[in-house]
């Protein structure tokens, strides 16, 4: 019965006895007790190769005190994932390009149609809208403008082409339909070229058309009538109108698709511009006074959409020169926008819950990172990490449960808006007046990278360059910003 030492990974087990009467399998079982490696995975080097389960100890000539090496682990055998990844190389040829580039194709300029191209690119960046359009197949109903349908269908086809194509897409059909529906876009210059148009007008009209035709995906029967566009972009404003003279008050609510950012000499930042945009003065006939008088209208947001559109009101009609002039003032805008201040009291109360949850998850993430750094000691730290995060999760649930306003929401399965928005697309204008210059769309991709869609040419951009589009010079200047809501998953 020779005793040997067995080396396994970096450990050495000394004084292991071999019962040479028994088959080596018995020896392997001995080692199984020591190492936990199942006998069938054990590989032991002996003279001339590996130790066989039914080998003969005599022939192997194992000597007293010899060192054997045991290889093998109890690790799980890696299995191929059931659904293997799809590789570009496997895709049909025409889809390889977009997949490889990581962004969609550009749009060909059909003669001063950059306003349209940039609008389409911006709207194309909203996945929910794309999805809704994809499923759009409603037939032309009676009593509906057939052009509404054909323009929606044209948008659907154009979006589809953009998703697939490698090369720049020429939106000829879309343009024709658009011009048919809105003849003002078909205006031509003396030279027979299409005239430059206002992208904001195009945006508004296009959204109007889509809002007329698109219904939400019928998940449950009741929601069928819920229009998609309103759900995605509609901002419900609650306004208080106060008469300066009679101090009478009235309130009204409306749904708009864009928040206006007014640009005046005091406005340096989007926040200030929005505040001004929500406050206006208007002449109105007072029912009490019986004559027209100055009213102050102050609006607050009552419902937040998943996508918040902000328009910089940088064009105004200049009477003296009879043209649309542009304010070149620099108005900064953030990559992350918090609209909490513009909300009504009720909405604020509603937002509190999700915001707290959101804040906590953010904190947890930061805390997580901190701990990872501290825990250089491998597994131990990892275990700590596991316990600590789960503790936090429990706390969070408790917190949410205690809060009265969020307690109702807990049951809601849908994620809730937090009033915090991320910038996802910017439509910029470059030039001195609305009817000239150039429109470009800057769109954030799923990968977090920014692409500048300059008509047919998509160009990769850095995030810090996006905030530089705030105007104040002849460079591209933000005209419409599209923000996407950050959501918190209620517990």
């Amino acid at each position, binding site marked *: 019965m020779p005793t040997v030492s067995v080396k396994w990974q970096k450990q050495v087990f000394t004084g292991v006895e071999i019962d040479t009467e028994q088959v080596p399998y018995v020896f392997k079982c001995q080692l199984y007790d020591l190492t936990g490696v199942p006998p069938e995975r054990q590989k032991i080097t002996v003279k001339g190769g590996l130790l066989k389960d039914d080998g003969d100890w005599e022939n192997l000539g194992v000597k007293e005190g010899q060192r054997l*090496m045991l290889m093998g682990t109890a690790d799980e055998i*890696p299995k191929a994932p059931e659904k293997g990844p799809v590789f570009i190389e496997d895709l049909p040829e025409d889809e390889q390009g977009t*997949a*490889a580039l990581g962004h969609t194709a550009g749009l060909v300029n059909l003669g001063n149609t950059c306003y349209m191209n940039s609008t389409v690119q911006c709207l194309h960046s909203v996945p929910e809208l794309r999805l809704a359009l994809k499923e759009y197949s409603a037939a032309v109903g009676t009593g509906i403008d057939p052009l509404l349908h054909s323009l929606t269908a044209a948008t659907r086809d154009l979006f589809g082409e953009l998703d697939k194509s490698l090369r720049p897409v020429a939106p000829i059909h879309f343009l024709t339909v658009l011009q048919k529906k809105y003849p003002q876009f078909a205006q031509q210059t003396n030279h027979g070229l299409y005239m430059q148009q206002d992208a904001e007008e195009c945006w508004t009209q296009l959204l109007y058309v889509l809002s007329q035709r698109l219904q939400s995906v019928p998940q449950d029967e009741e929601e069928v009538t819920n229009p998609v566009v309103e759900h995605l972009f509609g901002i419900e404003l609650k306004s208080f109108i106060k008469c300066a003279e009679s101090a009478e008050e009235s309130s009204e609510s409306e749904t708009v698709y864009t928040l206006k950012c007014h640009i005046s000499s005091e406005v340096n930042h989007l926040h200030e511009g929005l505040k001004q945009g929500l406050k206006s003065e208007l002449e109105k006939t007072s029912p009490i006074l019986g004559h027209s008088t100055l009213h102050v209208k102050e609006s607050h947001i009552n419902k937040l959409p998943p996508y918040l559109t902000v328009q910089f009101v940088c064009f105004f009609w200049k009477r003296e020169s009879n043209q649309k002039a542009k304010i070149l003032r620099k108005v900064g805008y953030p990559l992350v926008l918090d609209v909490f201040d513009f909300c009504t009291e009720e909405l604020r109360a509603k937002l509190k819950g999700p915001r707290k949850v959101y804040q906590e998850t953010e904190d947890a993430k930061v805390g997580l990172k901190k701990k990872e750094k501290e825990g250089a000691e491998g597994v131990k730290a990892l275990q700590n990490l596991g316990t600590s995060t789960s503790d936090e999760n429990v706390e969070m649930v408790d917190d949410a449960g205690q809060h009265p306003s969020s307690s109702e929401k807990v049951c809601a399965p849908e994620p809730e808006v937090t009033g915090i928005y991320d910038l996802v697309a910017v439509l910029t204008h470059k030039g001195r007046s609305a009817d000239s210059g150039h429109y470009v769309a800057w769109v954030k*991709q799923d990968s977090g990278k920014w692409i500048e869609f300059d008509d047919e040419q998509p160009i*990769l951009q850095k995030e810090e360059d996006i905030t530089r589009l705030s105007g104040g010079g002849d460079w591209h200047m933000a005209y419409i910003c599209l923000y996407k809501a950050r959501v918190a998953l209620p517990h």
Partner: protein
Amino acid sequence: MAPEHPKESHQMDHDAQPPPPSSKSVVKDAKKKKDEKKDEDLSEEDQALKQQLELYVERVQDVDPAIQKVALEAMREEIRTATSSMTSVPKPLKFLRPHYGALKSYYEKMVNAELKRYLADVISVLALTMSEDGDRESLCFRLQGSVGDIGSWGHEYVRNLAGEIGNEFQQRQIEEQPVDDLMDLVKQIVPFHVKHNAEPEAVDLLMEVESLDLLVEHIDKGNYKRTCSYLTSFASYVPEPDDTLVLDIAYQLYCKFEKYPDALRVALRMDNTQYVKSIFAACKDFSEKQQLCYILARQGISLDLDGELADSNEQRDILQELISNSKLSEGYLTLARDLDVMEPKTPDDIYKAHLIDGRASAGASVDSARQNLAATFVNAFVNAGFGQDKLMTVPSTESLTGSSSGSWLFKNKEHGKASAAASLGLIALWDVDGGLPLVDKYLYSNDNHVIAGALLAVGIVNCGVHNECDPAYALLCESVNKEDPTTRIGAIMGLGLAYAGSQREEVLKLLTPIVHDFKVGIEVAGFAALSLGLVYVGSCNEDVAQSIILALMDRSEAELGEPLAHFLCLGLGLLYLGKQDAVDATMEVAKTLHEKISKFCQVTLDSCAYAGTGNVLKVQAFLSLCGDHLEKGDSHQAPAVLGIALVAMAEELGLDMAIRSLEHLLQYGEQNIRRAVPLALGILSISNPKISVMDTLSRLSHDTDSEVAMAATVSLGIIGAGTNNARIAGMLRNLSSYYYKDPSLLFCVRIAQGLVHMGKGLLTLNPYHSDRFMLSNVALAGLISFLHGSLDMKSIILGKYHYVLYFLVLAIQPRMLITLDENLKPLSVPVRVGQAVDVVGQAGRPKTITGFQTHTTPVLLATGDRAELATEKYIPLSSVLEGFVILKLNPDYQQDHLSS
């Protein structure tokens, strides 16, 4: 006499200058004339000397022998005592010049033998300035003169004599005349040179008269170092077989002064196992023996120490462990920890896409198998040897988040999975105990590609290290004959990597049947031949050669046309790596092969056999091969281009010339030559990013021919391998945005990026080490295999056989200096690291490094860097501070009171 000198040299200065233009020249001319005039009318002292000498000359021709003798002695005295500056002839010689002819003709007439010898001495000295070129009169009269102290006539005289002896010796060799009288002179001159710090001249003289062995007895403790450094460095310029002779003398000298580590280096360079063994037998100090083992391990030589070579069994085990190189991983990680680079890096950390200006890919939304494969390689190269990374070895606890180790593997497609699994081996490089458990689970996969990769990983982990339990063979031997060709290739290549240079007989028995089994695919046979070539590299093994040649003869024309058939030739070539004319017999056989492969095989054999020899004739032969403009279909020019580089890489001068020749090939060569040139440039400047080569490659990386561009891109990685060179990294980043639409070129760019950041900048691919004195055969073989793989980029690297890239593992070595105490524990000492200066043949104790900085060990050494200890407290046991160096306490060291 003294005041004369400045004026004389002054005048010489004027003569050297071109005549100054215009009015000034008139003034100068006047001045010159004045000088000449002054020369003519000598000072009184000189005048007296001149007259005196003339009188002696007259008296020498006197009839009275007594007067003659007095005159001769006086003349001799004058000559001997005359001193002179470096630029002028001693006065007595100058004044005697007009009488040279007269003295010579009188000499012929003289009868008195004794006086005749006396006069012969004088004439011999005068001949120093008078004799016509090629007359060798100085030597001639010396031989007829008295046999006196040769040094008494001054150093210049001896040097002149030595030169004439060389010429005379050659003359007599041709005419087959005896040379005994010359040898007597040589025996006088050599000690004189050696005594006067002119060892190189002594060596040169002895080389001329072909009796270098006389040197040994004259060298002493004070000058053996300079002598040996001269011998070893000029050995590269001596044609074989004389170079071995030169090295042999150096070896004897080192042995004589018990400098065993240096002697071992010379013995290894000569590839003389007998010498290696006798060094071990002679070396008695245990620490020094350990140092010897470290040197052996670096060269990758496995030596079995039997009873005589080690003092006790216990010591034997320690030494054997050092030779097995199993401490390499530990040392490398010590360095990494000291430099704080243990944190794993991801491919994205290397690509640094945020630094790319302007247009670039926004990152694929869909996984690209090719780019994932590139990321696999980059990850493997960058984290090579660290044992941890962020793709393959992520602990399974994180598998919940979907990033488990298995998932990256399966992000590779088909054969890509093989390379991905094999990358585990590279990540755990040299760490057999830690690496095999990582690989283990993949051996049980149900995917043949994964198994093949795991087998290859086993080979890679064991590359360059030997484990007493020999796990690689045990794990791989059975899979070699599996049915699936991919699995077989994995196991075969794994064996080749694990046992490269070991000449293991088991491997021979296992693989030779595969090589000449014509039933297996040519690709399996090709890899088997290549693995055998690696295992028996430079051994000229007959059995292996036979089986490969048989395979080359038996295979059909179609099979020989496959890209992997070239590996058969390469395997054959590696057997003769650096063995020069030992290849001749096989070369004759190669000429009889099928025409499809014959030429390719011959060139490959030639380029391997003369690789690292610096043989100029071979370089010329290859160049002339490249001059031909061939019909399409011939493929032998590409290995010829590589051959130029492989032969010329031996020494710096030839290397520079080869780079210039390659430039010509680029200009005038055909496309198939141009495609190989970037690779040749790569190997010439491997891990040594020279600006000129970098610029050439950068230009070629935008070449219109995509294969030239690909080769140039990969070569950029090769020349920057393991250097983290910022300039190359920048170039590659730009290339990655330039080629973002071309997946093949982008793949090459990624590979190059991975290579540049190999081991996070702690590694090198340079096969030369120990101050560029030694060439590691195994490393060179790995590089050649990789280069041959890259010659046919499209079908091999970009095809299914990308794991050929792992042949580079054979050349990977840490570029470090770790100092150890006598218990082999790391010891931190200050060292100066700077640019190495060539001090060969310089007198005195010149500085060996320049522009140095002081660091504390362990320290990183760049190519061309040299280190020296900055403390007197320790004495290094190896004169070359590279790799592992054991330090001994200096017994004479006294602690400085001020510094303590």
